[in-house]
């Protein structure tokens, strides 16, 4: 039992991003941003001496433009869960991923920025953001930059973000009504840490899928795209045998790290099953959105136990 942040002596509540960055710069890595606080509350780091409370930076927003949805870094999971525009993105994949985070009290605290920077292996949001090809906006003392989710999650963000940098916004491109998506969390309980996460986003054109993006999380430290499986599915009619191929190919690709709750062999196999189901579900949702003009049909709340609607072609 160790003390939480034993060396903590400073607390700041800047009112602008610029001030925040100046304060971070001066901290030389010993000051850290405080967003939802769910991981800092457990930190026993002796390195951290100062906290920068981000709550006055006015970054808690979700804004809809013609082509994208801009999500402020301090928007919390609950905000994503109940936002209509978020729900419309790729069959609700982002909303499903946000809903998979912890329980209601945690979803009221965990922020988008905090969640993607901390990037725990079980995190669900990064998996969905990778599948959606989101862009991460970052501000630091040398200015602003935007990087793709792929680049952001290629290594752990804490490694490539400079100590003076702050994630300010996540931009998610809007999808057409022919685009479907699905997110599946595999865990012992609804609120438990994932043993596997799978996200799938695809476009349905006739009998074939296009622009398929498949992401696996919680198998390894970083979420990753299943490029080979995506290639297999690209522009191919979605037949049961193709789905089986996607399943076994996934099981071959995924090399889960050790988890006391289940053997790697088992998780490999389940990864294949979940990928198959995610594709089916995404396909079925794409069909649904196509059928209803404007794609405004509301779906029931996501859960990992949701039954696949069996949209195999």
């Amino acid at each position, binding site marked *: *039992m*160790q*003390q939480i942040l034993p060396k903590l002596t400073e607390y700041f509540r800047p009112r602008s991003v610029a001030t925040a960055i100046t304060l971070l710069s001066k901290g030389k890595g010993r000051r850290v941003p405080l967003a939802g606080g769910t991981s800092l509350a457990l930190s026993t780091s002796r390195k951290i001496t100062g906290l920068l409370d981000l709550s006055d930076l006015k970054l808690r927003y979700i804004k809809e433009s013609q082509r994208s949805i801009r999500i402020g870094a301090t928007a919390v999971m609950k905000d994503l869960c109940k936002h209509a525009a978020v729900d419309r993105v790729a069959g609700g994949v982002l909303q499903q991923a946000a809903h998979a985070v912890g*329980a209601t009290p945690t979803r009221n605290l965990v922020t988008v920025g905090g969640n993607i920077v901390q990037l725990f292996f079980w995190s669900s949001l990064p998996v969905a953001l990778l599948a959606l090809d989101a862009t991460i906006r970052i501000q630091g003392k040398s200015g602003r930059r935007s990087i793709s989710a792929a680049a952001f999650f290629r290594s752990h963000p804490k490694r490539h973000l400079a100590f003076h940098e702050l994630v300010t916004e996540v931009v998610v491109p809007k999808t057409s009504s022919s685009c479907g998506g699905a997110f599946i969390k*595999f*865990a*012992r*309980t*609804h*609120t*438990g*840490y994932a043993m596997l996460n799978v996200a799938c986003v695809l476009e349905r054109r006739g009998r074939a899928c296009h622009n398929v993006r498949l992401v696996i999380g919680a198998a390894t430290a970083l979420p990753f795209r299943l490029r080979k499986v995506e290639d297999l599915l690209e522009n191919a009619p979605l037949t049961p045998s193709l789905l089986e191929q996607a399943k076994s190919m996934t099981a071959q690709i995924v090399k889960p790290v050790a988890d*006391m*709750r*289940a*053997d790697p062999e*088992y998780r490999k*196999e*389940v990864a294949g*099953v*979940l990928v198959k189901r995610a594709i089916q579900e995404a396909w079925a949702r794409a069909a649904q959105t196509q059928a209803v003009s404007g794609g405004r049909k509301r779906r029931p709340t996501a859960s990992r*136990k949701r*039954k696949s609607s069996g949209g195999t072609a």
Partner: protein
Amino acid sequence: MPQKRTFNIVGISVPKVDGVSLATGSAQFTDDFELRSMLHARMLRSPHAHARIRKIDTSEAARLPGVHGILTYKNVPRVAHTTAGQGHPEPSPYDTFLFDRKVRYVGDAVAAVAADTLQIANQALQLIQVDYEILDPVFDPHQALQKDAPIIHDEPDAYAPLPVIYEPQRNLAAHVDMEIGDVEAGFHQADVLLDNQYSTHYGAHAALETHIVITYLDEQNRLVIRTSTQVPFHVRRIVARVLQQPVSRIRVVKPRIGGAFGGKQEIILEAISGALTLLTRRPVKLQLTREEEFMCTRTRHPQHIRLKSGVKKDGSLTALDLSILMNAGAYGPHALTVVCNSGSKTLPLYRCPNVRFEGNTAYTNLPIGGAYRGYGATQAFFAMGVQMDEMAHAIGMDPPTFHKRNHIRAGEGSPVFQALGEGKKGVEMKLNTCGLDACIDQGARAISWHTKRRRRDKGVRRRGVGMVCLMQGSAIPEIDMAAATITMNDDGSFILLAGATDLGTGSDTVLAQIAAEILSVTTDQIVVHSSDTDFTPFDVGAYASSTTYLSGNAVKHAAEQVRQQILRVASEMLNTEPSMLMLRKGTVMHQKTTTRRVSLADVAHYSLYQKNQFHISATASQHTHISPPPFAAHFAEVEVDTETGEIRVLEYVAAVDCGTAINPALAEGQTEGAIVNGISFALIEEFHFDARGRMLNPNFNYYSIFSARDVPPIKAILVPTHEPTGPFGAKSIAEISINGPLPAISNAVYHAVGIRLRHAPFTPQHVLDALRNQGRQKKL
């Protein structure tokens, strides 16, 4: 059929007497208490599963500013005892010392430090130098009983206080056996023989409030122990013995409890904290972290079970042979009685002329087993419940019919009741009540058994239904006792002083209802206090499903005596015979001319201030010669995902005969809580250990338990019977329903996909492996 009785308060779901205070946060738990100059204690724990302490040096830690006291084996009395809070002498071996030169599992107590702050105490722990001689550990109970196994309790002063079999020199913590009839002959008469092995796993109570105690000296230098316990009077007795203090110098106070489930029937911290207070003369608080709660308190004993049975084609049982090897872990609290209960709470359920039972409990260098809701019955009902299903299947009989054909009935006894007691012979008992037929019928109807049973799914996700029948007991006969005191206040209200301990179960409310029923008042006129060894009368505590049945009767008798006194005073006031009077809604009135009446307040005032004064009050005690079993039939509908191995419980129905439900909402709550606890244990709860015996997941991140979102729809049906020896016909309800989920889910999975799950927990990987093996066998 249940007898119709009309009550005023009994049988009604009145709100909990402590409900508002719990909901608004004003309820006082152990930790809600600050004392001036209170010290904070922490414990140093063994990193090794089995080691001898060669040298321990606390001098550096003692020099740390803010450290006020350090305990090791060197400065505490060496008193062999058990931490099991049971009647005296305990049926558990005396194999525990406050601190010892030897450590027997990862997490065993090495030292305790009291300091001004927790931080200082933690720092001090790091300054204690311990030189360990590491010994070979043994983790498997089978291996522990082998000849060349390391001996865990090689200390010469461990012993069993009762004449029971106890052989620590071969790691045998307990043994029990019995045979009724001739089991081998029974097997010869059978048309079908079944012989299978089953196993159950470690489980944590996972109470929200971890073990906590505050100790201090009162103005007379008596040791006051404010503790989260189920057994305040056993705490007093055991701490007195261990600290070599007279019982009269110790007072134990039980505040509100944040969950116990059997885990707080154990005296784990009280003597340590008490010793620190005696050493420092300062108040001391000792609370376990969640990690310690998982690793260093008590668990559900894992069991390896072999069950052999014979059945005739007509469905009659010819023989049952149950043998159990139980893992005690490093010490033996409840080592004998839990395994006894595995036999005594399961075998009498079925009429069978030939029954054999053997139970052995082995020490290992793993976490310690103890009392946990269900108490051995949970483990054994897994084997019994599944094998009954296997038998029904083998002879082609529908399980409800099979159970109905074989279960014990009112008017019948079982030789098992007599053969198996707790550390001594049991008692002869004939059942006054058994509502099991009605439980089976009502439960089957509620889950649409006959419709669902015909269904055979073929897809990826397949559904099935399964059932099981259960029993438990109500208190330990010829051992347990309870007492209660009721006094009357000058406004006609009452104080109920109960030794019984409400752990959140609602027993304060149930006891208030019993008193209110007799005294014809509402529960707000009964002020309940439980429990304080200085002020409330003796009660063994909350365990063995005893409070409603046993303590309830004590309250009832006390209330009846108070009622007699009230009538006597009123008769003096109304100038009539007491027999002509009756009590109605806070008034004593003449049976014929009801205008001749006095209020309870008038009676109280008269008795205290006016004439022939005396305090209307009574204390009554209760013990019991029998332990009337509650019965239950449980039904589960599951869906098995054949691609991932996940089991989802879709619906769960529990029909329970608890006699009269004094408070139906609380009885349903006990049932639902036990089922959630049981499903979570069956499907997801698991202790993981590394190769050196250290638990890898002592936290809720990796030891998952069900939360509200995971709970399936549960239907609790209360099937009334009238137990003549219970208060207003009541039997127990607290434990029975935790025994259902393991077998009911296993049987439902068999119906869904044709695999028999005989080893718990039913994790997805385990289920998928079983499905694979089944597929392979089919191909062969």
